[in-house]
């Protein structure tokens, strides 16, 4: 069985001594790697199939544990289903395998689960003097004939959440999968049976293929582990992984195998991207707020400066004269304007607070538009205009009714305000739910239009006006945009001077 040999070989290369025992009361040894055999001075044949306590009094001695203590540790791991770590002192300086300056080691016991059952225990011995690790536990010869119980090994590999695979090097640049663990299947979505035995170019898609082949070659030439980050498209979706390959060489110095590991960092990458978007949004929002403060202070100052100037003159103007009346009238207007700006501020802040969004409900756009049409009936008649509402009655959105009313009111009253003098006004309001992602309402008029090349993005900005005279305060479209954004929608405009304008209002989704 090529597969078992491969696994056993890969496992036996670990310099940290490992021992796998069954979880039943006999604690039969199922697998021991070469490093462990060297450490306790017994061969694999002696160890396998026997109870750990009979086979390895030597191990207990090395770990300075008594049999009851070890059984107690086993029991603890079996019950808690979590690993147990225990610091032990490796005494005996005369030990032939232990260097004199090794101060201690710890033993970790962890469970291998099948479902909710602990079926095997793995004992791992780690010497605290890392530098001496390889000297101390270096295995003397590679034992390819080691036949580890197949199930134990597979379970160890499959219990890992990182992707693990081995590639046999058949000739220069030709690699064939000889092993892949369960995580490989989970991460890529490719069934393990369909991967093992396949060549790399049959499994890994371009453009990743070119990259990985280059990296494999690099690992072989440099005779060391090579790591890189990689994005690939697999049946399970786009995956970002941190990949490492380690080359293995035979006695003649030829690379016969690559051991690969992939740490799936897709979620991490996605979170990173999301965070970046969030930061950009916040940055934009902050800039909007700065702009908003600047504009507001300016628009508060304008009527205030007028009032201040007028009041300064007033003591010198004879009461009751026509000029005096003019002053009083302008003073009133200035203070009223000041009041309007403060009211605007209040309104905008309340939308920004999103406090009104607590009373959202499914609202039919056709009903809201008809209501607005009714409210603007007099203005429409005076302008000699026609309003045609053609909205699918099933076009309903989860929204604040007051916001929707404000949006429709502003857009329709704008169309009346900025109508063309050359032709009778026609306003058409239509719905468009062909794009499921972005259901839209279009407000189209044949009015005087806007030169969008000149106005650009300013059209939705606060207190920006595009017509001379006092008509319009430059808040309507700003409110429309703010209302929509509070409901996670957005607005677009198309216009041709002297032809007309279409405002398209997009909503997040329709109510089913």
């Amino acid at each position, binding site marked *: 069985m090529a597969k078992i040999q491969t696994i056993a070989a890969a496992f036996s290369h670990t310099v940290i001594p490992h021992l796998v025992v069954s979880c039943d009361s006999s604690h039969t040894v199922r697998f021991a790697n070469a490093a462990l055999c060297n450490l306790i001075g017994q061969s694999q044949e002696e160890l396998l199939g026997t109870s750990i306590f009979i086979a390895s009094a030597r191990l207990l001695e090395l770990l300075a544990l008594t049999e009851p203590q070890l059984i107690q540790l086993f029991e603890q791991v079996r019950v808690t289903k979590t690993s147990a770590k225990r610091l032990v002192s490796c005494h005996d300086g005369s030990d032939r395998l232990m260097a004199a300056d090794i101060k201690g080691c710890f033993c970790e016991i962890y469970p291998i689960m099948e479902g909710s059952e602990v079926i095997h225990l793995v004992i791992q011995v780690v010497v605290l003097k890392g530098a001496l690790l390889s000297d101390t536990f270096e295995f003397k010869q590679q034992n390819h004939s080691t036949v580890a119980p197949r199930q134990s090994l597979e379970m160890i590999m499959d219990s890992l959440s990182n992707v693990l695979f081995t590639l046999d090097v058949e000739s220069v640049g030709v690699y064939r999968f000889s092993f892949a663990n369960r995580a490989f299947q989970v991460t890529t979505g490719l069934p393990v049976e369909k991967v093992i035995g396949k060549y790399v170019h049959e499994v890994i898609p371009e453009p990743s293929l070119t990259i990985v082949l280059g990296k494999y070659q690099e690992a072989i030439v440099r005779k060391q582990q090579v790591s890189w980050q990689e994005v690939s498209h697999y049946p399970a979706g786009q995956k970002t992984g941190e990949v490492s390959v380690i080359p293995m060489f035979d006695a003649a110095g030829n690379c016969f195998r690559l051991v690969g590991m992939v740490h799936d960092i897709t979620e991490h990458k996605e979170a990173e991207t999301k965070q970046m978007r969030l930061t950009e949004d916040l940055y934009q929002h902050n800039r909007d707020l700065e702009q908003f403060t600047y504009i507001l202070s*300016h628009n508060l*100052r304008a009527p205030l400066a*007028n009032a201040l*100037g007028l009041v300064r003159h007033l003591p*010198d103007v004879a009461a009751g004269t026509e000029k005096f009346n003019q002053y009083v009238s302008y003073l009133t207007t200035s203070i009223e304007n000041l009041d309007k700006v403060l009211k605007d501020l209040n309104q905008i802040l309340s939308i920004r607070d999103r406090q009104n969004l607590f009373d959202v409900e499914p609202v039919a756009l056709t009903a809201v538009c008809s209501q607005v049409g009714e409210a603007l009936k007099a203005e429409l008649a005076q302008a000699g205009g026609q309003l045609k509402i053609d909205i699918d009655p099933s076009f309903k959105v989860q929204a604040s009714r007051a916001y929707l009313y404000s949006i429709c009111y502003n857009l329709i009253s704008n169309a009346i305000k900025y109508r063309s003098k050359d032709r009778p006004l026609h306003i058409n309001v239509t719905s468009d739910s062909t794009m499921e992602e972005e259901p839209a309402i279009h407000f189209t008029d044949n009015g005087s239009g806007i030169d969008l090349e000149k106005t650009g993005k300013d059209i939705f900005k606060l207190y920006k*006006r595009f*017509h*001379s005279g006092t008509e319009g305060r430059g808040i309507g479209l700003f409110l429309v945009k703010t209302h929509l954004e509070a409901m996670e929608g957005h607005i677009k405009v198309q216009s041709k001077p002297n032809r007309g304008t279409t405002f398209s209002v997009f909503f997040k989704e329709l109510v089913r």
Partner: protein
Amino acid sequence: MNIAIIDDDPISIFLTEMSLEKEGVWAKLKSFMSAEEALQVLEAHSLNDLPDVILLDLNMPIINGWQFLEIFQHLPAAKLQGKCAVYILTSSLDTADTVKAGENALVKGIIHKPITPEDIGVILLSN
């Protein structure tokens, strides 16, 4: 002295006119409600008819004060050379506007609304 006021706010124009009158400025006043209107008229003026002083508002629809200056400085140079003194007359207290005004060769000064007798004194002294 000829003075032109360019401002889209009629109350502000009224106040500026009254302030000048109050200070006894014996001037020919011409007021424009928009920058376009002002540009049209100024372009058609002969050198002698150009105003000595322009009081220019910044925050106006369509063409704002800065855009006006941009166009105005491209009018035939002979007409402008030392002829028109432009003063920004704004309700803005933003220091960025003050800095920008200082950098513009056409602008002689920036006045914050409402215009005061002192401001008018300075204009009269330097023109």
